[in-house]
């Protein structure tokens, strides 16, 4: 497909990387020629300098024969105007705009025909929703949902009390008493695709596939508290904090927002009557203690500075807060961070760009192409969902008779509404929704790529 991306910032760059690797023809528009120069030097794309909301720039960028326009500049107004102009110039164009301001949220949806906006993406809101989901399942560092919500891949850190530690994977069933599959393990920053003899050690990060209904059982049998968070401290009063409090409304979770800008505090207090807004410096540990960080069930760090978020999260950890969630905007794939106790890591940029990439895949709707791709463990593990087609090979054969490529694991098969965590006797049939897990060295574009022959 021919795709135009307006804005070469965080989301723009992440989209450029993903979409160009998936074979699309990309034109990136940005008003800063240095940003463009950097992008076109790294990826096989073309750049146009200028304002993406201007007709002549869009014309030069070839909007007339483009299929998709993604407006991801840092200004909502520009994005809306750009989508409107682009759609006006080419009525067959699909447009995706990044709209972040809560005040525009409803019109971006209800007046989407006027704006020519096919989809509005709100990174902050997505991040808030993700955080709210994590708060509902304390104990998991990340949760990724597949196959219409029937399957989850959860991330779990093995601590000193975990009953799995020092046991081989083959004994997993006896301890958990429910059907799960450990699809990948990260140990000291290295990703391992384990077999039955693999012995789980303390501090391993486990990626476990389970049916959504079994998550609570899994937590209970691992001896992890399933007590829902009651009191959450949020550091930073930005847009994500606002959305998060909105998401948590009515769940019975008390939120305290710590924000050091008095004007913003008043604004938040107006918009969020149910939350406690505290004016103060979240980087001050004394202040955090005073606000009772140690007594809270969860700390979410959402300030605008990655460094500050890291520091606050580390501090919360020393105060034995049972759940810590850290927002990172720049350093989410940094290998050094793996050794730090930051709890769950949330990256609004990645969430937004994955959402867009998922949309593009659905648009393309190629035979045999992936339905969903999730990157786990700092991008080093990929979980990909496919639908088995009639030309998928080895249909109906038992998995133990099929030779799959190294480092590729079939982790779930959904037939109708019946989920199977596969064993050697399982088989794939036409129409099944299949989730596979692989490390990022192996490139899988369609289901047939997983077979070793």
């Amino acid at each position, binding site marked *: 497909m*021919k795709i135009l991306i307006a804005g070469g910032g965080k989301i723009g760059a992440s989209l450029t*990387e993903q979409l160009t*690797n998936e074979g699309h*023809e*990309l*034109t990136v528009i940005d008003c800063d*020629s240095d940003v463009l120069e950097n*992008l*076109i*030097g*790294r*990826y*096989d*794309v*073309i750049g146009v300098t200028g304002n993406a909301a201007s007709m002549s720039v869009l014309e030069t960028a070839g909007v007339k024969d483009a299929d998709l326009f993604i407006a991801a500049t840092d200004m909502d107004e520009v994005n809306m105007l750009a989508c409107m102009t682009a759609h006006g110039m080419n009525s067959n164009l699909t447009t995706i705009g990044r709209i972040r301001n809560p005040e525009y949220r409803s019109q971006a949806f209800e007046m989407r025909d006027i704006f020519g906006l096919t989809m509005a993406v709100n990174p902050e809101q997505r991040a808030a929703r993700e955080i709210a989901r994590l708060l509902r399942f304390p104990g998991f560092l990340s949760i990724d949902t597949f196959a219409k919500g029937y399957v989850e891949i959860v991330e779990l850190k093995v601590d000193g009390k975990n009953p799995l530690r020092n046991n081989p994977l083959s004994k997993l069933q006896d301890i958990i008493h429910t059907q799960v599959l450990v699809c990948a393990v990260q140990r000291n920053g290295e990703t391992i695709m384990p077999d039955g003899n693999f012995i789980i050690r303390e501090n391993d990060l486990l990626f476990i596939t389970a049916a959504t209904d079994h998550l609570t059982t899994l937590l209970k049998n691992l001896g992890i508290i399933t007590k829902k968070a009651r009191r959450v401290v949020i550091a930073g009063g930005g847009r994500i904090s606002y959305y998060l409090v909105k998401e948590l409304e009515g769940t019975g979770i008390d939120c305290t927002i710590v924000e050091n800008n008095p004007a913003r505090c008043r604004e938040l207090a107006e918009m969020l009557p149910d939350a406690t807004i505290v004016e103060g410096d979240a980087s001050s540990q004394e202040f955090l203690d005073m606000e009772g960080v140690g007594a809270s069930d969860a700390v979410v760090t959402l300030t605008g500075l990655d460094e500050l978020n890291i520091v606050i999260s580390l501090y919360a950890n020393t105060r034995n807060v049972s759940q810590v969630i850290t927002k990172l905007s720049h350093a989410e794939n940094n290998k050094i961070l793996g050794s730090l106790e930051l709890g769950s890591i949330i990256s609004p940029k990645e969430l937004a760009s994955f959402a867009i990439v998922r949309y593009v895949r659905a648009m393309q709707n190629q035979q045999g192409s992936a339905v969903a791709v999730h990157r786990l463990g700092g991008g080093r593990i990929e979980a990909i969902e496919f639908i088995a087609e009639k030309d998928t090979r080895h249909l109906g054969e038992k998995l133990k008779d099929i030779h799959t490529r190294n480092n590729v694991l079939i982790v779930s098969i959904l037939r109708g509404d019946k989920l199977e965590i596969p064993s050697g006797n399982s088989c794939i049939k036409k129409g099944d929704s299949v989730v596979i897990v692989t490390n990022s060295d192996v*490139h899988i574009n369609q289901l047939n790529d997983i077979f070793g022959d």
Partner: protein
Amino acid sequence: MRYAMNYKQIGKIIAFILILEAVFMVPAWGISLLYHEANAAFAFLKSQLIVLVAAGILLAITRDAKHNFYAKEGLVTTGFTWIALSLFGALPFWISREIPSYVDAVFETVSGFTTTGSSILTNVEAMDHGLLYWRSFSHWVGGMGVLVFLMAIVPLAGKNEGFTLHILRAESPGPSVGKLVPRMRQTAKILYLIYVVLTVLDVVFLLLGGMSLFDSICHAFGTAGTGGFGVKADSFASYSPYLQNVTTVFMLLFGVNFSCYYLLLLKRVKEVLRDEELHLYVIIVVVSILLITWNISGLYTTIGESLRHAAFQVATVISTTGYATTDFDLWPSFSKSILLFLMLSGACAGSTGGGIKVARLLLLMKSLRRNFHAVLHPSEIRKVRVNGVPVDEKVMNNVNGYLIAYVAIITFSFLLISLDGFSMETNFSAIMATFNNIGPGFAAVGPTCNFSAYSTLSKIVMIFDMLAGRLEILPILVFFSKSTWKKN
């Protein structure tokens, strides 16, 4: 930046290029057989074998190449590729003993690939057809660029192909090279498609004028690459006026920026007509032709004949081709000075021609005007614009830097070859002709003479100049940078 240069990936690309070169030799080998030239055919066969073995060894060493590849690697790859291409491309001449000295053979090959057209051959017509074809073919593939050709047919690195832009920039001439369409492979294909179509058109027009098929193909290759190797000792002098005029037109066409042709294909005629570089190119050509016609009118019987010779010579020099219909060394000084200026200016950016490029000239003129303006109105802020678009200051800096390097290399080369004791005019025009990829110069290296009399050292200097001129200096200059050779 301090990181280890990715030599393995560079080696891999060079290996691909060598395989390509072996494939390119197949038609030359066939032509040798067709004309019953067993010696040349064997030379090609042996050369192919050597090239393939070298490529095989390179591929074996570079099996586990990693993909990290940046601007520096792009430059070094381009430089290495062209050197390897020339060193191996010289083998057929040397093995067949048609050119007994290896340095001479390399000179001839570099002159071919860089589309210079300077020859050390004393008798072109005595050469085997297969080798003549190889010489002309090297013009053709060197004109548009061999790495661009490779990029058109194979995906170089699978994912993250952004680096190919650095190669395109290093290999294609001009101050600001960009892609035509988002995908590099598609861009390379479009460029070669336009190139092939124009070349075939040229062949057809030459055939219509009664030229033999072999001559037509060789001359079309020389014209398309703006090279200048012919198959006759007197270049174009003995061909009919029709053939000369056809060649004049095509030389000028190949001196135009290829993105103009792409815009024409897209029916964006207005943009082409408004292109400032094209305007300047046309103005320079027309004014030069008129001035020379007036200046040399006494030498020829009719004004038409003067016009034909003037037009051909102007086209051949500004497009940096290097054919000749007459010995322009015998022309009056004024005409020769105009030709010398044309040698400097060269063709348009993004064409197959050499020289400083009209686009750079345009930018230099505009920046000069801005500097004058700044003296009179010190506080006024002005942007240099081309085609209504402001030019990035980085591009302006690069153009200035290019000019400095250009003058420096010409000065040093001129000094070095002056050791051989030829006249100043000979030496200076020899450097201008090789560095700007034109071919013949004036006096002892004029259109009826050749470069064989120079010493080996001078020939090596000129080999360097030809490569530096074709690749626009930087890809060759990086070999003198310490960081290129650093191990870590």
